């Protein structure tokens, strides 16, 4: 079932819809999908989907994007690193909820996801048992780049290693 999702463009479309809608409605961010590169000053928020469709999902973005998002949500220009972290986690939490709801629409089964983790720096998932992956790149007009990474894992838990946030390795 997971491979079938990846075999067509549904997963990419689902991921794109989730990030575009949440960015706009949650933080007023307009993102345009295009090839772009992250700067050296980035933050990462990530989680693991467990159950059906085991996968690792990460959102890497230039720090300025998350700062801009935090300023929008907090309604003030002066935001703390804690504000940035908390806003990024809630933003990503909502994106993940949309992805899970979309997966349910496609397959009638849905994973649950773990509490998102935030890292100042680049922390792309590096996992064993990757079955397929999907990487979407976005540009925010004024504040930098965003990259959404979805790594579908093999269904057999002995082939993959999706359980436990601590099992998500970082590849900077």
């Amino acid at each position, binding site marked *: 079932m997971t491979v079938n999702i990846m075999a067509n463009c549904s997963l990419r479309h689902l991921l794109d819809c989730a990030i575009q809608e949440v960015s706009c*409605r949650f933080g007023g961010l307009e993102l345009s999908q295009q090839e772009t590169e992250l700067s050296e000053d980035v933050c990462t928020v990530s989680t693991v989907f467990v159950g059906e469709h085991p996968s690792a999902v990460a959102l890497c973005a230039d720090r300025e994007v998350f700062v801009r998002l935090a300023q929008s949500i907090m309604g003030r220009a002066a935001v703390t690193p804690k504000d940035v972290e*908390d806003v990024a*986690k809630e933003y990503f939490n909502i994106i993940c909820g949309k992805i899970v*709801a979309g997966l349910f629409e496609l397959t009638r089964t*849905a994973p*649950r996801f773990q509490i998102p983790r935030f890292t100042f720096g680049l922390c792309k998932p590096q996992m064993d048992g990757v079955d397929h992956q999907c990487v979407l790149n976005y540009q925010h007009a004024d504040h930098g780049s965003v990259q959404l990474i979805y790594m579908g894992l093999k269904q057999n838990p002995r082939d993959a290693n999706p359980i436990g946030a601590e099992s998500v390795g970082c590849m900077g």
Partner: protein
Amino acid sequence: MAKKVMIVDDSRIAQLQLQEILSGTEYEVVACCLNGEEALNKYDEVHPDLVTMDIVMPGIDGLATARMMMQAHPEARVLVVSSLAYDDTINEAKDIGAMGFVYKPFDHDQIMQAMADAFSHEQVGAGCEEGKRSPEA
């Protein structure tokens, strides 16, 4: 007299957003809880008129928390506020007896309407249909 609201959400940001929306209304936020265990303990202390409940939280998830809360307090009004909105979770919320389901990201009008519905409908699940009419449904 203000209606007492207890917010259950592990996100400080979601708590702040809800507090801001409810500020200056007929609703008074009397407690904010970061997880299910805290919410179950706090309920007996503050006796809220309505509880907003996130689903994805550390420890007991929001639906399990709501189920335990409703079993202990059948009169409890629970409004689920979550991004984890699809048929299974919406139906489970209905089965538990939740008064509604608001999808994240929410706005002022969605919250206020769901609150009003929760107090105007005694029939469980009426508000869930309202949630299904959200733009992303």
